[in-house]
């Protein structure tokens, strides 16, 4: 029960299942793709913040936002959006703090994916 609650905090499962039309296999493939792809985007975002490259920050935060949007992962989506806006406005004062938050939320999302996978395996 505690596990299910934790999953619900990160992902809106009903919404995700609606998006994939109940196709668990498709959802698992999407998760695989995400897990392979996101570390690259995270390091691009980190580098953009270090190098104060606001365009690069905007672009990569935008991409990661689009990707997590498919999983109805609202908290990660929200932080990615705020980073994207910082990039667009060329104001990176709070970017490092937001990045740390994004890292934490991303970790929770990956844990949620693990729970989902286990549920499917059962």
């Amino acid at each position, binding site marked *: 029960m505690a596990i299910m609650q934790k999953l619900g905090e990160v992902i809106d499962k009903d919404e995700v299942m609606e*998006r994939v039309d109940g196709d668990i296999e498709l959802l698992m493939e999407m998760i695989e793709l995400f897990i392979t792809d996101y570390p690259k985007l995270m390091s691009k975002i980190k580098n953009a913040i270090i190098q104060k490259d606001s365009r690069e920050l905007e672009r990569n935060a935008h*991409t990661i936002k*689009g*990707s997590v*949007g*498919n999983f109805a992962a609202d908290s990660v989506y929200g932080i990615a959006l705020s980073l994207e806006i910082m990039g667009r406005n060329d104001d990176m004062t709070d970017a490092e703090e937001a990045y740390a938050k994004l890292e934490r939320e991303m970790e929770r999302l990956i844990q949620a994916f693990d729970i989902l996978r286990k549920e499917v395996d059962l």
Partner: protein
Amino acid sequence: MTILIAEDDPVTRKILKSILSNWGYDVIVTCDGNEAWQVLQSDNVPNLAILDWIMPSMDGIELCQKIRKTPNIQSLYTILLTIKGQKKDIIEGLRFGADDYITKPFNRGELKARIQAGVRIVELQTSLASRVRELEDALANIKQLQVLLPICSYCKKIRDDQNYWQKVEEYISQHLEVRFSHGVCPECYEKIVKPDLKKISIRQ
């Protein structure tokens, strides 16, 4: 019906391809604007294109503008895929040549409805284009008739392009989809056939 997808995010690409294939469409998947442009220049041009707004190398807007400037694909039905969803961006997208837009993450019902609207227009365009071709062929036939024909005042033969005199019915049969069946009109029957028949019966 073939749909081209240009999307840099692998997760969105996967879900789009899967949904569209399930709905029975043939799907060509590309990862950025340049790759999509390569497909559009091949012989296998899709009927409809779903283009992500922000992509590396060439973005959706740029691609839209290029499509509108290229004669053989300029009427390709294009749907822009965007997470922006702000009115200003949507207006910009449509102004640069997109036919429609879908905001991400998309709702399946909306995606289906917008694609079906696109398919209706594509089918209408295709049937109109084939009607126009038929009409152009018909017009070319009519033009063949609009020439000055030299005709012999006595035997009514017609002189063709090769300076050859041929019978009216031969000439018309060659230039139009017309065949002649021979008969005798009442006037000629009275004037020619009847006297001939009379001569024959007298001889007998």
